[in-house]
């Protein structure tokens, strides 16, 4: 009961806080216009499209990079090197999960950002690319663990039948095991997306946090979480900006709720088969 109360109160409080901004700008303006000038002394504007797209760009690219590595690691754990996988790779993944996100952020800032600055010869190196790479590493364990579970749950009879027909291991993996584990792997990817979407401080430390349409890999950008974590400090001075931040927070909540519903839908489809 208490859990449900806590959950509902998170939605209610953030939800109520999120509506105030619409006294100043229309919902469409907020969602679709890229004009974020909260500190302007005359007519500050709150068009968050650039920030929302920033989140989607970083998360989308991170999942594209993380998925192949995660599938590779999951197959290593369950198909090609089971013993070595259990002894070495699984503990390694657990440590990856345990590393605090601010530590990832600090490492990204000191190890990755200078390299990107050296390649691009522009700006500080804090960029969309840096945020994408840091996030990719952070979500690999999530996607890997869930994919490995899905692959393990594929009945061995399927793989044995495939081998008996003379298929190579890769043919068996590609044509039999991965399709059979599809639902679980998709669940892993969706959870990875959810985790990436909600990650705040690691991204905030390496992305530069300059709101605007994310057009350039080597340039800075901003995401919903980074804008919230940076600008919430000025809430007393700029109440309208504060309202806008709560709207971004609510948007994050709704997006992660949608992802949860997708996962539940997937797992139900999986059980029905």
């Amino acid at each position, binding site marked *: 009961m208490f*859990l449900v109360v806590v959950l509902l109160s998170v939605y209610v409080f953030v939800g109520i806080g999120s509506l105030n901004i619409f006294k100043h700008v229309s919902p469409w303006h907020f969602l679709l216009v890229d004009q974020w000038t909260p500190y302007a002394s005359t007519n500050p504007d709150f068009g968050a499209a650039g920030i929302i797209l920033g989140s989607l760009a970083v998360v989308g690219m991170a999942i594209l990079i993380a998925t192949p590595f995660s599938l590779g690691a999951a197959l290593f754990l369950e198909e090609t090197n089971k013993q070595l996988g259990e002894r070495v790779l699984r503990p390694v993944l657990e440590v990856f999960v345990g590393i605090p996100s601010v530590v990832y952020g600090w490492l990204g800032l000191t190890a990755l950002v200078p390299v990107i600055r050296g390649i691009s010869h522009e700006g500080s190196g804090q960029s969309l690319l840096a945020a994408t790479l840091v996030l990719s590493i952070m979500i690999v364990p999530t996607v890997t663990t869930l994919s490995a579970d899905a692959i393990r749950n594929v009945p061995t009879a399927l793989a044995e039948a495939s081998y008996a027909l003379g298929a190579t291991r890769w043919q068996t993996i590609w044509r039999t095991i991965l399709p059979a584990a599809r639902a679980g792997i998709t669940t892993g990817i969706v959870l990875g997306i959810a985790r990436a979407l909600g990650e705040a401080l690691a991204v905030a430390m390496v992305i530069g946090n300059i709101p605007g349409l994310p057009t350039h890999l080597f340039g800075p950008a901003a995401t919903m979480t980074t804008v919230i974590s940076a600008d919430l400090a000025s809430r007393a001075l700029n109440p309208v900006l504060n309202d806008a931040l709560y709207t971004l927070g609510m948007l994050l*909540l709704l997006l992660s709720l949608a992802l*949860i519903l997708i996962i539940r839908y997937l797992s139900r489809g999986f059980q029905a088969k």
Partner: protein
Amino acid sequence: MSVQAGPARRARNSARVVDAVMTLAIRGSAVFLVGMLAFIVIRLILAGLPELNLHFITSPPKALDPGGGIGPQLFNSVYVLVLSLLITAPIGLAAGVYLAELAPDNRFTQALSVATETLATLPSIVVGLFGLLVFVELTHWSFTRLGGALALTVINLPYAVRVTEDALRALPDSLREGSLGVGATRWQTIRKVLLPAALPSLITGLILISGRAFGEAAALLYTAGQAALRAHLTLDPFAPGETLAVHLFSYRQDASVPDVNQIADGTAAVLLIVVLAFNVGARFLGRVAVRRVTGK
């Protein structure tokens, strides 16, 4: 069989090549991940090593001069974590026992498990937004360690419930049947048989939750606060309490000490070492527990 059709042989050969290449790719991604972790750990430890001494981890940070430490932050991290666990553990245990042992399988319990799942994926910065509204402003507490602990509780609770539920569900039914068979009530069975048997996995789960909570910063920025210089060694739950993870995030932006990067390096190394210790500790305990149960 000695004369094979050309196209079939070619197809089989190319399948073998693809197989070899993909196997290499699979092993490559595993090697890459292990190497990446080794790089991360070694780099962080090496960078932080020059800072790590008793003075650094016990003395307070400074406003302008070099040579400040992270003592109060380390203390606050432990304080907020313990305070949060004191709230999380009983509620999580009760909810987990209820879901695993007592609850009938109906719409309400299904809704409860959906709620737990949803709570577990809340972005922690949104928990921070919520905490700012409720534990900071609604209560008029301002930034406090108690507010931070409560925000952490929102994050930890679903994991605590899940750990308890899983630990109890993993126990064999023969335990329950044996206990009920000799005339114990359901409550006696839970308290004297099931919970002791599940204790090792409960403790392991608690340690893993602690490790995660120790590194949490986004939910604490605007609940426990980020005033580095106002962090003092008191036991007052209503004092502001910047934690170590928050310190790593915000000190760099606010402080004007010349050695801010070295301090950040040291802070990151301490965070990493503590989290690794939690991880190894949980793994060790898990192994001891397995040995005790299986008698090997």
